[in-house]
């Protein structure tokens, strides 16, 4: 339940237009909940407490829209011959399709936009360097500020896309685990193998774009200069910065940046949530592998190695973002 909650919370805070592109985790859980009354049985109406799967999936437009091509209106339980595994796999496939489409589409956008930005930078550099066409210093810095803002924006979106990929993957793995647990099936491992190679999860090109973006930003807008100028603000903790950003960013940076900033914070929160220990112990869970990341998750397993991980803990704390 922990993941579900983190997931849902994140959905609420993330970029609005992305919301329905995520995994339909809750509906899938519901689908499992009614096992062993499979969807086929349910649709025939033999059971007194029949669950109408239409309602289960009603609020997730993504399911119906993505699968609409099949037979017009898609209802997971509509196929009498299909058992739970069949419909489960079918739905997951549709989800994968949805993820891939969205991801590849966004990736393409980023490639184009980043290229444009780079060209813009070149143009501005030329303009400034060669014959000083810029009327004034302020015009130049305006232009640079624009470029900078665009770079930060695209960087933010790219990182959020990575988060999208990661979160969906985590959701898939979790729901597959639940499936195996509930039905005794062996779906998880093979399906995970498939997922690992899906475009939406192979994020290496995107990572390179992100690095490129960071490099460009470093190059063009070295952070040292700002540190000198705004020494008073830098000294304050990150905690204080976040409310200030949200209050004033809207007037300076626009809603787009604000959205991205909020989503970024939400994503950070979700990740940290995932890293916390859950009620079921699993040696291969994030929390076990990252033990000692959080002080709260002190368990018997944590203590033996706490010594050498102490320094890591300290370093981690310093890096804690505004969300903490």
């Amino acid at each position, binding site marked *: 339940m922990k993941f579900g909650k983190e997931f849902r919370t994140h959905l609420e805070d993330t970029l609005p237009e992305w919301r329905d592109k995520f995994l339909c985790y809750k509906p899938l859980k519901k689908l499992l909940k009614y096992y062993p009354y499979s969807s086929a049985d349910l649709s025939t109406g033999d059971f007194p407490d029949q669950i109408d799967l239409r309602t289960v999936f009603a609020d997730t437009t993504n399911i119906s829209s993505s699968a609409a091509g099949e037979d017009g209106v898609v209802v997971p339980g509509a196929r009498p011959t299909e058992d739970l595994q069949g419909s489960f796999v079918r739905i997951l496939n549709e989800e994968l399709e949805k993820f891939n489409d969205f991801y590849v589409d966004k990736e393409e956008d980023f490639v184009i936009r980043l290229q444009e930005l780079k060209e813009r930078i070149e143009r501005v550099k030329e303009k400034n360097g060669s014959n000083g066409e810029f009327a004034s210093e302020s015009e130049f810095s305006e232009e640079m500020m624009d470029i900078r803002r665009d770079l930060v924006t695209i960087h933010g979106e790219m990182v959020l896309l990575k988060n999208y990929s990661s979160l969906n993957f985590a959701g898939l793995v979790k729901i597959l685990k639940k499936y195996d647990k509930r039905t005794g099936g062996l779906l998880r491992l093979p399906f995970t193998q498939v997922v690992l190679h899906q475009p939406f999860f192979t994020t290496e090109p995107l990572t390179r774009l992100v*690095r490129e973006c960071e490099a460009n930003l470093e190059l063009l807008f070295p952070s040292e200069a700002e540190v000198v100028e705004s020494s008073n603000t830098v000294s304050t903790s990150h905690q204080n910065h976040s409310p200030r950003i949200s209050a004033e960013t809207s007037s300076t940076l626009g809603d787009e940046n604000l959205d991205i900033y909020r989503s970024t914070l939400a994503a950070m929160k979700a990740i940290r949530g995932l890293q916390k220990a859950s009620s079921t112990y699993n040696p291969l869970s994030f929390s076990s592998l990252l033990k000692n990341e959080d002080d709260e998750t002190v368990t018997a397993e944590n203590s033996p190695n706490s010594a050498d991980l102490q320094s890591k803990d300290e370093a981690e704390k310093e890096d804690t973002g505004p969300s903490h």
Partner: protein
Amino acid sequence: MEARPVQRTGSRELSNLVRTSSIPSTPNTSAAEGQLMSRPLGQTYHLLSSSNGGAVGHICSSSSSGFSTNLHYSSMVSHEKHYSGSSSNAVSSNDSSWCHDSLPGGFLDFPENHPAGIQNNSQIEEGGITEAFDDIQKRSDWQEWADHLITDEDPLLSTNWNDLLLETSSNSDSKEKSLQITQPQIAQQQPSPSVSVELRPVSTTSSNSNNGTGKARMRWTPELHEAFVEAVNSLGGSERATPKGVLKIMKVEGLTIYHVKSHLQKYRTARYRPEPSECGSPERKLTPLEHITSLDLKGGIGITEALRLQMEVQKQLHEQLEIQRNLQLRIEEQGKYLQMMFEKQNSGLAIGTTSTSDSAAKSEQEDKKAADSKELAAEETRKCQEEPESPQPKRPKTDN
């Protein structure tokens, strides 16, 4: 560290797979791209396999920086899945057991898939293949296990896995088949053909095997896009260029006019918006500047600071994501390894005596693996934390 055991011999199926594919015969079409060595593959692959330090992306870019351009690198990225196992020996003492499953699929795919824009594919391929052959020998029984897991009794079931793969190309007709996946039974059934077909990744466009609907997903890399931009410019700009003309100039195998058309549309939109605002309203630009100055005077947070902070948060998120992704990959790797061990034990004890020893052994293995992965994870995160600012120091050179 962990998956040494995977490296065993006995590669029947994989060897078969590789030989059936016509990889070695693929011609070198792109001499222009220069010498592409196989090393990048291994390093790319490294991304997918266990990493040696937080950011997988770092490794990627470090490998690419070793070669003149990112050109090959990014073009390879789409194939990294294919080559997953291929050059891992180049990189690792690390296990790449996770990678291997794509190996057979990749090899089979490669000759048929010509991901668009990547004319140097064949070169990549060549380099990768030689190493892959070596790896194949080593990784075969992992493959066996994967086969067991993935394949079901008969071809019908294996086509279901094709459905799973959402293969949009030649296998698209298989989508019509019903998904009657019964409990997958561990059986040694025609592993190689089904595995190879199953694992065909969807990300790259399959050129000749494309069913022509143009629905194959196309992944635009920066290099491909650059080629596109050049073609467009040579045709007189984004407004004047036609998809057909661009397609002709680009001469990229596997690129359909459908891809070019949609990309051109996006390109036009992306260009159109910045331009009016650039040459257009300079007055509008001044107001944010006024905001800055007024805010600065008030001692508030200016644009610069806001952007900087936003960037900080984003960078942190990115680091966290890299860590998380590595963990996810490693966990899956471990899971597979455990499963494999478990299956081997099962099949080994076919006489069916001590089931308790199975579970005992399994839990031992589990603990060992968990401990190993904990170490690695701790290592990774430690490394990440030590370089909080940026991952750049880890790379010899930025990937520009």
